[in-house]
C-alpha cells in the first residue's frame, strides 16, 4: 500500500520536476539561443564566486530579483482575482503534462509501473482541457487589473485561444482516427508499428498536414511570437501590464511551461513519443532482419532518453520559430486560425477518414 503510494508519488514527482526544471531553464535557453541566432553572446555576467557557467546563474538571479521586488496592486484592481490569476495560469500549465507518457512500462519484479504521471483513457482530452483552462488565468488577469490595455490583452488571449484550440482539436482528430484511441499511451504504442516493414508509423509520417496545423496552432496556444497578440509588448503590453515581481514572473513562467507542454504533446502525438525506431520491448529489430537484444532497464532508459531528446528538439524548433517570425496582427492571427487552420484540419479529417475507409480500419 505504502509502496503503491510511493510509486505514484515518484511518477508525479518525475513529471513535475521534468516540466518545472525545463520551464525554469527555458528562460536561459531562450536568451542564449536567440543570442547565438543573432550573432550575439547573450547573458553571461551573473556569477557565483567568479564562476559564470555560460550564464546559467541568470535564471537563479532573476528568480531572486523577482521574489524580492515590490508586489504592487493597482488601487481599483479586483483584490481576489488579481492575486488568483497568475496561480491559475501556472497551475493549469503545470498539470497539463500529467497524461503525457515519458516511457513504456517499467517492470521491477512482478510490479508493472506505467511511465506516465496519470494513466487516463482520455489523456488527449485532459491535456486540451487543461490547456484551455489556462487561458482563464489570463482573462482573469486582464479583467481584474482594472486597466483597459490589460483588458484588451485578456480579450485577445481569449479570442486567440478559441481560434487556435479549435484547430488543435480538429487536427488531432486525424491522429485519433488512425491510432484508434484517446489514451496517449495507446497512441504512442500505435506509433511503434512499421509501415512497409521499415518505416516507423510516427504521426508526422501518417499525418503530415495535421503535424503542421498542430505545431502552428500550438504556438498560438502558448501565446508566444509570432502569435503574441495578447502580449504585444510594442502596442498594449498585454494582460500582465499591471503585474510586478513574482506574479509577472509566473505569467512568464506559464508561457514557458506551455511551450514544454506543447513540445511534449507534439512529441507524443507526432514524433513517436518514447519510441526509438525499431526498438521493441526486448531490443532492436532492424529492418534487415538482424536483432540486438537489450536488457529491460536499458530499453526503458533508451525510451525515456528518446522522449527527452525529442521534447528538447521540439522546444528548439518552437524557440527558433519564436525568434524568426514577426508578430501577426490581431486580425491576421484570427484569419489564420479560422480561415486557414480550421478548414485545413477539417479537410485532413475527411481525407484521413476516406483513406481509412479504403484500407479498412485503423492502420495496424
Amino acid at each position: 500500500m505504502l509502496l503503491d503510494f510511493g510509486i505514484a508519488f515518484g511518477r508525479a514527482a518525475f513529471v513535475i520536476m521534468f516540466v518545472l526544471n525545463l520551464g525554469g531553464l527555458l528562460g536561459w535557453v531562450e536568451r542564449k539561443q536567440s543570442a547565438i541566432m543573432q550573432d550575439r553572446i547573450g547573458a553571461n555576467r551573473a556569477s557565483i564566486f567568479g564562476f559564470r557557467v555560460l550564464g546559467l546563474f541568470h535564471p537563479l538571479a532573476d528568480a531572486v530579483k523577482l521574489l524580492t521586488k515590490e508586489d504592487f496592486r493597482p488601487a481599483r484592481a479586483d483584490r481576489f482575482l488579481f492575486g488568483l490569476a497568475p496561480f491559475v495560469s501556472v497551475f493549469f500549465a503545470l498539470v497539463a503534462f500529467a497524461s503525457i507518457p515519458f516511457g513504456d512500462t517499467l517492470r521491477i519484479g512482478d510490479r508493472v509501473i506505467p511511465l506516465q504521471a496519470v494513466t487516463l483513457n482520455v489523456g488527449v482530452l485532459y491535456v486540451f482541457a487543461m490547456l484551455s483552462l489556462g487561458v482563464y488565468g489570463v482573462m482573469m488577469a486582464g479583467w481584474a487589473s482594472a486597466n483597459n490595455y490589460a483588458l484588451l490583452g485578456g480579450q485577445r488571449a481569449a479570442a486567440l485561444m478559441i481560434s487556435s484550440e479549435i484547430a488543435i482539436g480538429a487536427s488531432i482528430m486525424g491522429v485519433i482516427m488512425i491510432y484508434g484511441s484517446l489514451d496517449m499511451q495507446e497512441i504512442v504504442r500505435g506509433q511503434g508499428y512499421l509501415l512497409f516493414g521499415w518505416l516507423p508509423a510516427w504521426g508526422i509520417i501518417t499525418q503530415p498536414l495535421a503535424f503542421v496545423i498542430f505545431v502552428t496552432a500550438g504556438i498560438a496556444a502558448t501565446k508566444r511570437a509570432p502569435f503574441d497578440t495578447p502580449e504585444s509588448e510594442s502596442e498594449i503590453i498585454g494582460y500582465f501590464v499591471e503585474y510586478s515581481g513574482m506574479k509577472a514572473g509566473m505569467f512568464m513562467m506559464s508561457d514557458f511551461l506551455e511551450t514544454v507542454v506543447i513540445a511534449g504533446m507534439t512529441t507524443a502525438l507526432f514524433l513517436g513519443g518514447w519510441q526509438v525506431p525499431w526498438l521493441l520491448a526486448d531490443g532492436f529489430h532492424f529492418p534487415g532482419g538482424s536483432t540486438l537484444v537489450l536488457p529491460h532497464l536499458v530499453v526503458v532508459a533508451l525510451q525515456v532518453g528518446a522522449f527527452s531528446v525529442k521534447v528538447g528538439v521540439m522546444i528548439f524548433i518552437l524557440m527558433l520559430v519564436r525568434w524568426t517570425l514577426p508578430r501577426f496582427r490581431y486580425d491576421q492571427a484570427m484569419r489564420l486560425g479560422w480561415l486557414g487552420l480550421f478548414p485545413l484540419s477539417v479537410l485532413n479529417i475527411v481525407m484521413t477518414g476516406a483513406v481509412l475507409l479504403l484500407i479498412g480500419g485503423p492502420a495496424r
Partner: protein
Amino acid sequence: MRVTQRFYLAEAIEGVVITAGHFFRNMGKHIAHALGRKSARGAVTIQYPEERRPYSPRLRTLHRLVRREDGSPRCVACMMCETVCPAHCIYIVATEHPNPEIEKMPERFDIDLGKCVFCGYCVEACPEDAIRMDTGILEFSSFSRRGMIYTKETLLALEPIGADGRPTSPVPIPANRTV
C-alpha cells in the same frame, strides 16, 4: 505577390532555415573556440568594460587644458571658446599673468560637462591651442549636477590618450562624488 508569399508557410520555413543556419554556424564557432581554436568567434560582441573597440584619433572625448613649460595654462583667457560655445557651458574669469610677456591667464576655467554637447567648437576656436579634447576619457558621470562641473585644476592635470588607445589619466572625478 507570389503564391508562396501568400501561403506564408514556405516563406516562414525559408526564414527559419536562415536563422537556424546562423545558429548552427555560430554554435560550431563557439564550440571550436571552447576547444582551443581561439581565432574562431561565434559572435561580433565586444565585451565592453574588459574589451574596447579602438577609438578614432578624431574622437572628441573629455577636454583638457594644455600646460606651458612651467605648468601654468597655455590659455590666455581670450573668451573665444566661451563665446563660441553653443551650450554656454564654459565659464572663464581672467586674471593677469606674472610674466609681462603674457597678457592674461584664466583664474577660473570651469566646464559644465552636464551641458557640454561635445561639438568641439572650443577646440576649433582657440587661438593658442590651449584646449583639446583628446584624453580618451568617455566614462565620466556623477550623482549630482555639481559633480559634472570640471575646474581649471582638474582639466590641467589631464594627459592625452596613450599610444595604445587607452586613456592615460584616470577619470578625474569619481562617479560617487555628490558635491
